[in-house]
């Protein structure tokens, strides 16, 4: 597809006998928010892992921005503009919130073989970091150590770090995980603002958020894509209802 920013073809990943990704194909168009949903164990996080380069697929190709990135190491993909947030909060606990974000800015500001000047005094790193913190509403916590911040704030910071690298595409792995209703609403609002300028691939369990935000949705079950389309299509799809919503009922019952 001509306007696809990310194209995945025939992606397959096996862990022993388990097929976590079974010939997955999908494309994410420039500017859209594409959500991936699926029951637990559907292979969503494995898919993100392959997209960001931490997991090597057994077969298939990944194209990003016109380049085949299938064999590229993690850090190179980040430098191309593919940023990721983690399902389980993954931050730098020894640093303040601002330090965390400034580190992401630094990663994209040329090499770091600079041994002398104190990095915390470089406005070139600190200012963009402040802007990213501002986007997620954490400006007032800039100089707070991570240990004295809440889980909700950690989730926001997770997003700020991804943003600070000025990506063209965000891979968000359950940004709402563990958030209370207020915090979730805040995150949805932030994501809605972000989708105006960024392409986003969103993995999320919170269906309300997914259907409120997504332009297109892909449904993954047991590593296979069973449906892909607009939120209305997905809602109407019988197979999805059976595979996915059925599972939800079991979970609730």
């Amino acid at each position, binding site marked *: 597809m001509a306007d696809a920013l990310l194209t995945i073809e025939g992606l397959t990943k096996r862990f022993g006998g388990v097929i976590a990704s079974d010939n997955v194909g999908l494309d994410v168009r420039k500017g859209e928010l594409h959500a991936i949903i699926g029951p637990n164990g559907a292979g969503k996080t494995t898919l993100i892992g392959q997209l*960001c380069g*931490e997991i090597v697929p057994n077969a298939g190709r990944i194209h990003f921005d016109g380049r085949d990135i299938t064999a590229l*190491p*993690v*850090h*190179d993909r*980040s*430098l191309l503009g593919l*940023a*990721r947030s*983690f399902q389980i909060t*993954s*931050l*730098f*606990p*020894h*640093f*303040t919130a601002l*330090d965390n974000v*400034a*580190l*992401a800015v*630094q*990663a*994209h500001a040329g090499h*770091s*073989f*600079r*041994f*002398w*000047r*104190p*990095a*915390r005094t*470089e406005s070139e*790193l600190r200012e963009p970091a402040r802007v990213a913190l501002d986007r997620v509403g954490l400006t*007032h*916590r*800039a*100089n*707070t*150590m991570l240990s*004295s911040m809440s889980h909700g704030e950690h989730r926001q910071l997770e997003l700020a*770090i991804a943003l*600070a*690298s000025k990506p063209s595409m965000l891979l968000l792995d359950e940004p709402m995980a563990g958030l209370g209703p207020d915090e979730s609403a805040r995150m949805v609002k932030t994501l809605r603002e972000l989708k105006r300028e960024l392409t986003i691939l969103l993995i999320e369990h919170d269906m309300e958020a997914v259907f409120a935000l997504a332009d297109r949705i892909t449904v993954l079950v047991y590593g296979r894509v069973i449906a892909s389309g607009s939120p209305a299509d997905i809602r109407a799809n019988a197979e999805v209802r059976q595979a996915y919503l059925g599972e939800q009922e079991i979970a609730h019952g």
Partner: protein
Amino acid sequence: MMAVVTPRNTLVAVLLLLLALLPVYCSVTGNYFLMSLFTRILILGMAAVSLNLIMGFGGMVSFGHAVYLGIGGYAVGILAKEGINSGFVQWPVALLASGLFALGVGALCLRTRGVYFIMITLAFAQMIYYVASGLDRYGGDDGLTIYKRSQFFEPINLSNKTFFYYLCFVLLLACVYLVWRLVHSRFGMVIQGARSNERRMRAIGFPVYRYKLTCFVISGVMCGLAGVLLANHTDFINPSIMFWTRSGDLIVMAVLGGMGTVFGPVIGAIALLVLEEALPVLIGGASQLLTGHEVQGAREYWQLILGPMLLLIVLFARGGIDGMLARPPREVKGHG
């Protein structure tokens, strides 16, 4: 900036002042044993500072760091034995050899984590230890005497004990300052970030390996310099300079003084080596007090006191001696 007068800064200032004035005291009282002890403390402190750069800031626990003392020391010893006494040759050769060795070892062991990293660094260090033991021409197990200290131009004379003390002192301060600049620079942020969360570092775009390797080499060269000084100090070099227990001592110094702080390892080196000298005397004295005469062999049990002391520090003062004095980390700025 934060307050300048803190308990920690006061201790550091007092220590530096005492270290600077020590030779004066020694020359007045003629106590040259004390000056020799403290020259050794300065040198091993430098080694501990270098270890702390990778261990405390980079999270790379090298259990073979004394090998660089050996490489630096043997470079001096072997060249001296072959009639090359010029420091302008010996020192660069020693530093280069240390750096190359660190590059090779680091390139391999930085691909591993945790216990494997510790074991591989230990294995390489022991390997060089046995190589040195097998160097018959250079004394093998018995080691070799260095008849002439490194020669520089006049008036630099390393055989002058006071001069040599101050040389070690200045070089130690230079190393501490260098590490301080390093850990706060962009490079240092990468190293500290990698200790904290290496996976995230890669995800945000850092090729972590090459930064850690660079840090490993810098640390090796710095410890190699300590080895050069140690060989010049003892006028002698043998394989035990890099035995694994020596590597353990360096780790203890860093932990005792405070890992992840720039000056902590120097405090640790002073504490450990002074205790090593003082505890046997104290035990001897205590046995005399209790029984009326000094119990024979009592002094040998000084490690019975040192062991629990280390244990208490590790259990109750995570930041080491330095950490006890530093204020607990808290928010620099509050809400709003």
